[in-house]
Structure formats: structure tokens, C-alpha cells
């Protein structure tokens, strides 16, 4: 079980980790070659009046020394101030949450479905390992996994949207939204293809872990004992094998849930879905530092929380794991 002492130590580490991470990201981003003026206002940057550029630098505090900027940033973060985007002039936090909502439309159902199907199919496949169907499934999963996600997406658009015209070519809503307003069925119609793709991809990852875990559990002595006692196979599967095989899934699922906030750059790019992944790559090409810092901050925070949660959860479901003693 987890001890209070260990938990305290863990939280301290998390705090330290958080500061190290935001420090690294801050300096990396600020030392990045190019800035907003030269990168985004590319053609205009030579004709811009000097005063306007100066004003911009002054307004965002970019004329201060880097260490001062860093201190200001830390103070602002601690006060819950995430800053203002260069390109949009809007507060960063509401911008991120808005895009995040759109990302969630895709990635939330995909993650839930992916975890469920991956785990169930993986468990079954591991239980029946060596069988014909298991090998077929396993090879299918290797193939799905080996092909890059964006290529699947392009192929799906090409086949289902371009040649068969079952689905729209991209975007999150049709043009009729201008006259009729946003309708849920319309958004869903646009979302089905990307959701299906991401579900497949997430499911394969879970499938591997679950299958491997199941196979190693089946080899354990207590399964042999259960068989020797004469328990029926179903009983062994549900009472002994499955419960133990699910243990490694706890950590992985927690991390997958945290990874939701990062969105999926590839799928969002191919389907022109206005989510957080697309926002990240856009902010990067424009060198919109406050926006990037905000996105990083959110990702880092959630990953750190997920690490702590995964530790606590796994020691709660499996009392054999004693946190604090190094493995």
C-alpha cells in the first residue's frame, strides 16, 4: 500500500518536476530561432515602421532581459495568468479550452472506445494465444500499427470521402452552418471518420499490452494451481487471469487519458479539424510564444497529475506494489 510519507515525497518530486519542465520549455521557446514579427508577418517585416515593432516588443515585455521575462512568467503562472496570444491578442487559456473542446469531440470517444476494444480483444487474444484467430488478429494489429497514422487518415479520406463520397473531405461542419447554425448531427457526420481512425490506432496499442500481460499471467503458477484444482476454464479466466492481467492497463490508461489534451496533430491536420493539435502547429509556425507556453503548461500539468494518479491507483488495485521501496 501507499504510505503517507511516500505520497508527500512524490508530491514534492512532482512540484520540482513541474518547475523544471516549465523552465525548460520557457527557455527553449524563447531561444527558438525566429520570432513572431519575422515569421508571421514575413513579407511585411521589412516595411513595418520601427516604432510599431518596438511597441510590440515593449507590450509583450520582449525588450526585457530573458531572466526578467522568466521571473514575470513564473509569477504570472502562479497567479493563474496564462498570458495573451501574440497573433490573436486574446487570453491564452480560453483560447486553448475552446480548441480543446473541439479536440475532445474526436479524441474522447476515440480514447474510450479504443481502450475498451483494445483491452477486450487483447485479453481474448492472449487467453487463446497460439490459436489461429489469435495469430490472425496479432498480425492484423502489427500491420495497423506499422502504418503511420496520417497515412491511414489520407487513405481513409481518399477512399471514403473522395471516391465513395460517403463522408465530407474535411472540416468540422458543412457550409450550411452559416444559415442554419451548428447542428450536432452535422458535426457528428464530419467526426465519424477521424474518430473511427483514432479508435483503431489507440486500440492496437492497448491490444499489445493486454495480450502480452495475459500471456505472462497464464504462465504463472497460480493459474496452473487453479487448473490443477479443477476449476472450469471460464472461472479461471474471470476470477484469476483477467484480474491480474488488467493490472498493467491501469498505468497505461491513466497516461492515455492525460494524453487527450495534446490532441492529435496528424489526424487534425489531415481532416482540417480545428483542434488543439492544429493550434499547436499553427502557434509554432507563427512563433506565438504565450500560446505555446500555455499548451505546454497544460500538457505538463496533466502528465504530472497522471503520473501521481497512476502510482496511487496501481498500488490501490495491487497491494503487492509497495510504493517507496525502489523496485
Amino acid at each position, binding site marked *: 500500500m501507499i504510505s503517507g510519507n511516500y505520497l508527500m515525497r512524490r508530491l514534492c*518530486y512532482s512540484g*520540482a*518536476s*513541474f518547475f*523544471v*519542465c516549465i523552465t*525548460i*520549455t520557457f527557455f*527553449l*521557446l524563447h*531561444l*527558438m*530561432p*525566429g520570432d513572431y514579427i519575422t515569421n508571421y508577418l514575413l513579407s511585411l517585416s521589412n516595411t513595418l515602421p520601427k516604432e510599431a515593432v518596438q511597441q510590440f516588443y515593449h507590450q509583450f515585455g520582449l525588450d526585457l532581459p530573458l531572466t526578467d521575462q522568466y521571473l514575470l512568467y513564473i509569477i504570472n503562472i502562479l497567479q493563474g495568468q496564462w498570458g495573451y496570444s501574440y497573433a490573436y491578442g486574446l487570453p491564452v487559456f480560453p483560447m486553448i479550452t475552446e480548441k480543446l473542446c473541439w479536440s475532445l469531440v474526436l479524441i474522447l470517444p476515440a480514447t474510450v472506445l479504443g481502450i475498451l476494444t483494445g483491452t477486450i480483444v487483447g485479453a481474448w487474444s*492472449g487467453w487463446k*494465444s*497460439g490459436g489461429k484467430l489469435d*495469430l490472425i488478429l496479432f498480425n492484423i494489429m*502489427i*500491420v495497423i*500499427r*506499422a*502504418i*503511420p*497514422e*496520417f*497515412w491511414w487518415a*489520407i*487513405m481513409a*479520406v*481518399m477512399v471514403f470521402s*473522395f471516391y465513395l463520397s460517403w463522408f465530407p*473531405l474535411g472540416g468540422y461542419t458543412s457550409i450550411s452552418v452559416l444559415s442554419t447554425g451548428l447542428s450536432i448531427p452535422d458535426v457528428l457526420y464530419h467526426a465519424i471518420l477521424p474518430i473511427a481512425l483514432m479508435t483503431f490506432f489507440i486500440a492496437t496499442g492497448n491490444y499489445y499490452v493486454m495480450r*502480452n500481460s495475459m*500471456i*505472462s499471467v*497464464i*504462465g504463472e503458477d497460480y493459474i496452473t494451481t487453479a487448473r490443477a484444482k479443477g476449476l472450469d476454464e471460464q472461472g479461471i479466466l474471470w476470477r484469476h487471469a483477467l484480474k491480474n492481467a488488467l493490472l498493467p492497463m491501469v498505468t497505461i490508461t491513466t497516461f492515455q487519458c492525460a494524453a487527450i489534451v*495534446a490532441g492529435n*496533430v*496528424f489526424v487534425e*491536420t*489531415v481532416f482540417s479539424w480545428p483542434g488543439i493539435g492544429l493550434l*499547436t*502547429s499553427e502557434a*509554432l*509556425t507563427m512563433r506565438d510564444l504565450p500560446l*505555446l507556453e500555455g*499548451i*505546454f503548461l497544460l*500538457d*505538463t500539468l496533466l*502528465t*504530472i497529475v497522471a*503520473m501521481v494518479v497512476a502510482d496511487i491507483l496501481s498500488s490501490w488495485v495491487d497491494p503487492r506494489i509497495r510504493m517507496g521501496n525502489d*523496485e
Partner: protein
Amino acid sequence: MSRKPILWISLAVLCVFIGIALAAPLIAPLGPTAITGKPLQPPDTRHLLGTNNIGQDIFAQLVFGARITLLFGFFSALFSVLISTSVGIVIGYYGGLVDEIVCRAIDIFMPIPMFVLLIVLTTFFSPQILEVSLLMGFLGSIYGIRIMRSQVLSIARMNYVEGAKAIGASDFHIMYRHILPNVMPLVMVKFVSASQHLLVMGVGLSFIGLWDTSIIDWGTMIQNAYSQGGLALGLWWWILPPGIAVVCVSLSLALIGYSLEETFNPRVGVNRL
């Protein structure tokens, strides 16, 4: 079902691509950037795969793209495996303070969103393939160090290591002659799977357009075809070849990886109870 034929086919496919990459100037003497025809020509005898939107030969781009994509994948994988193996062996063998420091450092760096960090870091080194692949290798090694360390931890307590110590072998000798050969199978598996992951990731990075677009690799080709309307116009010869090439290489690497893993690590193989 035997994996042998699959392994051989995968190796053959990979060798063909490596051969193409090595012989690129012989196969396509005009080079990937030369404008050799009218824009958007369909495939014919002069342009085996047609031309792109500014009249560059797609076949030549594919052949030269193989160089960059493969170089990138293998080089970054090599670097990643080198780091994770050497660091893993050293901290696993010595243990104590070194181990503690490295593990804590990894703990602290773990929460940084790797993918986004990678994208940011590539902007620093964008035009140089070699630097970017070193960087990817370095970032990719962070997870590998832990895996290596846990393997080495159990090996370092084996009797033969104790024995080697007792007859006065030096630490370096033990690590190099006794521990390294024992983790070598794992290193090979990791190398193959890392080159698949990193190759796909490199193609992905250039697909989302975050690399210098003057470097023509398969990702840039796909991105170009996709964003310039190759898909919407139904010009399959523009968008399909680079994608199929990526799929072939990545798939054969993945299959080789699994075959190796099954050979070296019977636990993931077929359960024969």
C-alpha cells in the same frame, strides 16, 4: 504459422529500399529538384510516376527521398540505442548514487510532452538532417534507459558476474564482455523497433510541415501532394508512391522487429500450455 518467410520477405524489401537509396544518383541522374517536364503530367515512359505541380519528376524525388528517410530512421535509432544501452549498463551495474541521480533526472524529465518538445527542438536544427536525428535519438533513448537498466540489474547479480569480479576483472571488462553480450538480443530488438518508430515519426514531422521544406523526403512529398490538391484532383500517382514506400519500409521493419522479439524472448511468443 511460421514467421520465417515473413522475416525473409521483410528483409528483402528493406534491402531493396536501401539499395535504391544508395544507388539514387544512378537511378535518377537528374536529381530530385530538377524541373524536367510539364507540371502534373501523368505517368509515362519518360516520367515513370509523372510530375508534380512544378514539373519535378516524382520518381526521382521518391528515389532521393529514400536516402533521407532511411538515413534519418537508422541514424536516430542507432544513436538512441547507443545512449540507452551504455547509460543503462553503467547505472545498472554501478547502482547507488549514479543510478539514483539518473533515475530521478528521468522522472523529472518524463512529464515534458515529448512530441511537442521534439517539434520545438527541430526548429533549432531544421536544415540539418544529422542534427535532428541525433536529437530524436537522444529523446527516444530516455525511455530505453529504464528498460536497459532493469535488465542489467538482474544480470549484474548473476553468479558469473560475481565470479568475474572475484578473479579481478575490471569494471569495464565485466560490462563489455559479460553484461553487454547478455543484453545484446534486447538491444537488437530495440534498434529495429526504434528505427521503425523514429522513421515514421520523422516522416510525420515533415508531413505536418515542420521541417525545412527544401529537404525532399517522403513526408515532404506527401505533404506537398496533399496540400497542393493531389488528393482533391484525384492525381493518385502524386500522392500514393511516397506513402506506399513509407508503408513498405515501416511494415517490414515492424515485422523484422517482431520476428526478432519472438526469437529472443520466448515469453511474448506463442503460449504452448
